[in-house]
């Protein structure tokens, strides 16, 4: 997925002089996850550069640039470190178009590695998507494969509005199905690991059915798409797995169609349960599909506690936990 993201930025840096890339360690070194490796060398320091460790400055500078018509694509080193920039993102970037009645706009992408599964402890594991989906004016995107990652990132950079682009770091190097040994296969062995060269776009706001099924709908995104696949195999139920890809705007049509068919739904995310995006999904789904439902909608999510270090696998939603939830809704 790293190469896919890099390729997306490379394509946009080459085809649009207003695109620029910056963040902590992204310049000469190419980012602690290497997503921008080589981009400074090929596009020059004026297009790809290092910043001081001040996330508010990173986004604040980007807002000023975007308002003038540039298209900054900035990196926050870990999603856990986005909070100093939370004011700039939610109060400034998100509202600039609206509050200026279109005089100024903010075509800005904030990339950040998100989620757990890497023994990163509480400051390298958080999943803050719900803190952005509540903010009108933002778009929130999270890919689950290299193929999507590239197409979605190009779409995000080309989008006229600010996009929060969450990168599930656990699957940077390969799909992770929740194996507690921590092992994962490389992307090269996965069909969606293949990434076309050059320019292509996956439109924001469209979910993807990863697995068709008749009995229960699983809503997931990022790493959890793969963990859900393992869980479905483990539970042996005929589940339909929907990879949301874009949380805001949300592809409610695809979700509705599925749940009206299956009558059951399990929502999975890594973020803490209370106030997570799962609540929003359930509220929408029950409203849209109430008369089709055969069982309560349930969530499998991170526990409402700081993300622990040593107890990682007790915290991270496992295939077993998801499988239990699948069996539970099938009982009703």
């Amino acid at each position: 997925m790293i190469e896919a993201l890099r390729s997306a930025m490379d394509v946009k840096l080459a085809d649009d002089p207003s695109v620029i890339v910056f963040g902590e360690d992204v310049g000469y070194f190419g980012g602690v996850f290497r997503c921008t490796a080589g981009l400074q060398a090929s596009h020059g320091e004026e297009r790809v550069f290092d910043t001081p460790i001040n996330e508010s400055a990173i986004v604040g500078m980007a807002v000023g640039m975007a308002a003038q018509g540039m298209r900054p694509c900035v990196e926050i080193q870990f999603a856990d470190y986005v909070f100093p920039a939370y004011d700039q993102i939610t109060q400034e970037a998100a509202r600039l178009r609206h509050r200026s009645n279109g005089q100024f706009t903010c075509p800005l992408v904030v990339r950040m590695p998100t989620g757990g599964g890497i023994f990163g402890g509480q400051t390298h594991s958080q999943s803050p998507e719900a803190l952005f989906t509540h903010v009108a004016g933002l778009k929130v995107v999270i890919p689950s494969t290299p193929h999507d990652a590239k197409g979605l990132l190009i779409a995000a950079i080309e989008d006229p509005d600010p996009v929060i682009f969450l990168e599930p770091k656990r699957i940077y190097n390969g799909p992770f199905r929740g194996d507690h040994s921590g092992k994962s296969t490389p992307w090269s062995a996965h069909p969606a690991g293949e990434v076309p060269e050059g320019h292509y776009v996956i439109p924001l706001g469209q979910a993807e059915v990863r697995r068709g099924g008749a009995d229960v709908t699983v809503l997931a995104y990022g790493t959890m798409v793969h963990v859900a696949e393992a869980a479905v195999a483990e539970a042996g139920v005929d589940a339909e797995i929907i990879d949301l890809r874009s949380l805001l705007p949300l592809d409610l049509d695809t979700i509705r169609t599925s749940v009206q068919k299956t009558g059951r739904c399990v929502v999975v995310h890594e973020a803490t349960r209370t106030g997570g995006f799962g609540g929003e999904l359930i509220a929408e789904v029950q409203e849209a599909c109430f008369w089709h439902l055969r069982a309560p909608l349930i969530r499998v999510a991170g526990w409402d506690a700081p993300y622990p270090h040593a107890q990682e696998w007790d915290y991270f939603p496992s295939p077993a936990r998801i499988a239990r939830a699948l069996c539970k809704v099938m009982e009703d």
Partner: protein
Amino acid sequence: MTAKLAFPHPPARPDQPPDFSNIVVPPAGSLPVPPLDLEARDARALAVGLVRVLDDAGRAVGPWADGIADLTGDDLRLGLRDMLRMRAVDRRMLNAQRQGKTSFYLQCTGEEAIGCGFQRQLEQGDMNFPTYRQQTLLIAADYPLEALMGQLYSNEMDPLQGRQLPIMHSARDYGFFSISGNLGTQYVQAVGWAMACALRGNGKIAAGWIGDGATASGDFHSALLSASVYLPPVVLNVVNNQWAISTYTGVAVGKSETYAARALGYGIPALRVDGNDYLAVVAVSRWAVARARLGHGPVLIEWFTYRAAAHSTSDDPTAYRPKDEALAWPLGDPVQRLKAHLIARGEWSEARHVQAEAEILDEVIAVQKTVEAHGTFVDPKPISPAEIFRGVYADLPPHLRRQRQEMGY
């Protein structure tokens, strides 16, 4: 001896007489004009001193005066008119708020010279990132009063269609960035905008604006730091009007000698300037704008002034400072000082001044009447509710379409 906390206090509270004895007012003309490529280490005297051009007799003196010797009587009368127009607009709008015609207002009384003098040194395409107290920038950019008042009344002439608080203007074509209510955030955005100017090589510059109180915000630091690292063409203005709502400027300046001196710590040259001296404002602004435009990097200017009016229509300053403190302000009133200078130059008279005030008032009232004819804030629903959904995104996403339908539009 053990440690005890310090709590900064203003020199006087409501029950006390005003006391500005702590403020040192150096004679006009005593500071030099530094080279455009001034370095922070050579700026100390300018940062802890006070650049002044007009002396007590209303004469323009010293090297900064020499730098603007080309200004004609017309130029200066234009400046005076800008300030008078500003003051007239402020007074009328304050009254309009008292009459319920707008929800909120906020004056810049006493600070007119700063924005008026600065704006006239900018070019088309330069961009200010103002606070809510820089309506002077709009006035001196000849922003149509119709648009300004339209926004105050949230009627159909409002360029922002009711979205924003009355005073939170946005006027891209007039070099005026959309104001945010959140303090500090825009200071670093100004740096970003200036970086974009440099990256595109378009020859334009940005100007950040911040109040003394808001220099405490994290993004004041973000701005100074990024300006110090990338050296973009930005002029960073601090309007030190001694107060942040009820809070004395000492709570924001702490042990720093001045706000200008704080910038020196970032390696950014800085000057402290008499903000009530229109000529000093013009001279220093012209210097700073030229410096930025020519690529010598950022500069910070602390405009030393006094917030003569209340913070806003929600505020009553007699609760926290002496009633007549403004009168005791040692740097006087910017309008009176420029007027005195023009008269001393033989370019103006008391009679012409009275006449100009009357003309300007008439003009402002005329516009006000026209704009009010389109409705004021007391009218219910002046603007379509569907405006709420327009422009949240470039295109209306499905969930907003559903919500707009639910609303009935």
